[in-house]
């Protein structure tokens, strides 16, 4: 069975001119650089990384909001292109996006129920009565009380707004939902509500999630697979329990180590990375992580490691770790 979403060697490059004294130097900004992953129906892939790693760009490429420089995105077996034609518009019914800032994603001037109805009207499925019933049923099942349906976005709380955004995204029953930092702007107790809600919805409706976040704790909670990104590349991919109990890539190790654990507060050796997340403009050849990696050697400066499967469920891009025996068929297996 083909996976719902397949991304193959996807890349997005920008030609930039950097000021260099009085003139400008040409360079290439690799926002996303040859990434591949797949997502099966009803599953969640967590995409995690710090600012500048390319996760938001990946989201937009997947949705066809941006054209790719290289590689392709296959959704339900068909290629996703950034042309704004009828095929692309039809795709909108199958894949939707949820954003970080729910207030910004909603129109200030319209009552929220109108905004939930809008996708139904645009894609013209059924008559207005049915639309209203569907919208009301969905909003109720997502925990929005009737008294809120005719309110304006600024009259609702952060958690309520996010439920509205979710309703609007789910009303057409898409098979893929791309969530870009959906809970980062919410209070902790509301985050928990929304996370639970997302999980319930997935069970009920069979939606697949591409869940993007910088917050590892949240990603761990919701994902079936986690991909760690750094400077436009995926450096490790694994199921959450494995990633968090035994991170293999040096960057994953640092990320996991940086999460303070509530219940485990003995001073475990923290890996604190030196230096700053580097500027994606100043890339040299070799591994993207070499400057901050405690294990970097000559090989790492020359050649960029490929994402190699280490088992049927794990892949790592690291020269050091690629010594381990790899399972050549693993990539295909984890995709189906």
């Amino acid at each position, binding site marked *: 069975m083909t996976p719902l979403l397949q991304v193959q060697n996807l890349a997005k490059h*920008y030609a*930039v*001119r*950097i*000021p260099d004294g*009085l003139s400008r130097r040409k*360079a*290439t900004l690799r926002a996303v650089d040859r990434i591949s992953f797949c997502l099966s129906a009803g599953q969640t892939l967590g995409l995690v990384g710090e600012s500048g790693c390319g996760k938001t760009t990946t989201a937009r490429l997947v949705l066809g909001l941006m054209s790719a*420089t290289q590689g392709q995105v296959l959704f339900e077996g068909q290629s996703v292109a950034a042309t704004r034609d009828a095929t692309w518009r039809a795709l909108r019914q199958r894949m939707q996006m949820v954003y970080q800032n729910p207030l910004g994603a909603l129109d200030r001037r319209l009552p929220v129920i109108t905004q939930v109805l809008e996708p139904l009207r645009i894609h013209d499925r059924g008559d207005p009565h049915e639309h209203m019933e569907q919208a009301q049923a969905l909003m109720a099942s997502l925990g929005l009380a009737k008294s809120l349906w005719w309110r304006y976005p600024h009259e609702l709380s952060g958690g309520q707004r996010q439920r509205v955004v979710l309703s609007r995204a789910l009303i057409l029953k898409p098979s893929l939902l791309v969530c870009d930092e959906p809970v980062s702007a919410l209070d902790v107790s509301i985050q928990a509500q929304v996370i639970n809600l997302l999980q319930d919805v997935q069970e009920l409706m069979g939606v697949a999630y591409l869940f993007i976040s910088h917050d590892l704790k949240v990603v761990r909670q919701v994902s079936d697979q986690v991909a760690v990104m750094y400077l436009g590349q995926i450096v490790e991919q694994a199921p959450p329990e494995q990633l968090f109990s035994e991170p293999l890539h040096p960057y994953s190790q640092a990320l996991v180590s940086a999460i303070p654990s509530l219940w485990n507060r003995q001073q475990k050796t923290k890996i604190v990375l030196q230096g700053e997340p580097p500027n994606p403009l100043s890339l040299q050849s070799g591994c993207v992580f070499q400057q901050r990696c405690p294990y970097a050697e000559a090989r790492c400066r020359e050649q960029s490691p490929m994402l190699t499967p280490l088992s049927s469920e794990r892949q790592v891009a690291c020269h050091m770790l690629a010594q381990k025996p790899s399972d050549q068929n693993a990539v295909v297996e984890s995709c189906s």
Partner: protein
Amino acid sequence: MTRFLAIRFLRGLLTLFLVLSFAFVILRSTGDPAMLIMSADAPPEALEAFRKGWGLDAPLWQQYLGYFKNLLEGNFGYSMRDKSPAMELVLARIPATLSLAVPAFILKLVIGISAGVFAALHRNSWIDRLLISLSIAGYTMPSFVLGLVLVLVFAVNLGWLPSGGDTTWQHAILPIVTLSLGGAAVLARFTRSAMLEVMGQPYIRTASAKGLVWRRVVLDHAMPNAAIPTLTLIGFMVGSLIAGAVVVESVFSWPGVGRLLVTSVANRDLAVVQSLLLLVATTMVTANLLVDALYGWIDPRVRSGQEARGKAL
């Protein structure tokens, strides 16, 4: 930075060129200098001779090219009224205008900025509200109305100050005040917004938390940041120092550049008008150029921020 300024400079030259061309064409499309300068009932042959003498019978494009050719040689033309060199005529009037414009400018800055800063620091108090109302009144009222009102009050009714002419320093008071109030009002309003915007920024709180007394916070941290947008406005005001006095000079019969502009346009004294426009446009363009340069000097984000610009592949 140099590249940045070089481009601005070239653009400035282009602006000058466009202004002069536009004026050239418009001035020659309406009105007949011959009839306006010699009286309307002069004999037609005299009018014809006049026109021929000044080259007004040649086709427009020829006059146009001739004008720019002369300009490049430094020949600004001659007044059709008294045959003296146009530019000399214009330059002779500048001291009179500046004697109004410069004090007015200083007054504008002092009144406008202090009022604006004061209002911002006492936001929502009665004095803030009063200052806002005054500034609205100030910049909505046309300057000739303001001028005439002041004349009415101070010259006619109270008799304290003379109403026109330029003989004594007392003659300068009313025109200077009239000139400055409108600009002060705009500046006050603008400064107030700029200050309020800055005062709401987190770094102001950091400065207070550092232990600086309020006066230091305002002077060292708030005002330099608020000055940045205000500078554009001030630059604009500098640019219009010369031209901005036209109305006021007319109301107060002040023999400056503005008066000259009015009379020479009315008479279609072409070379004088063009020279005046060249002067005014050059002042404007230079002032804007200076503001751009100053911006880069004052705001480090602009300076180092000619960042990477890119396009998608």
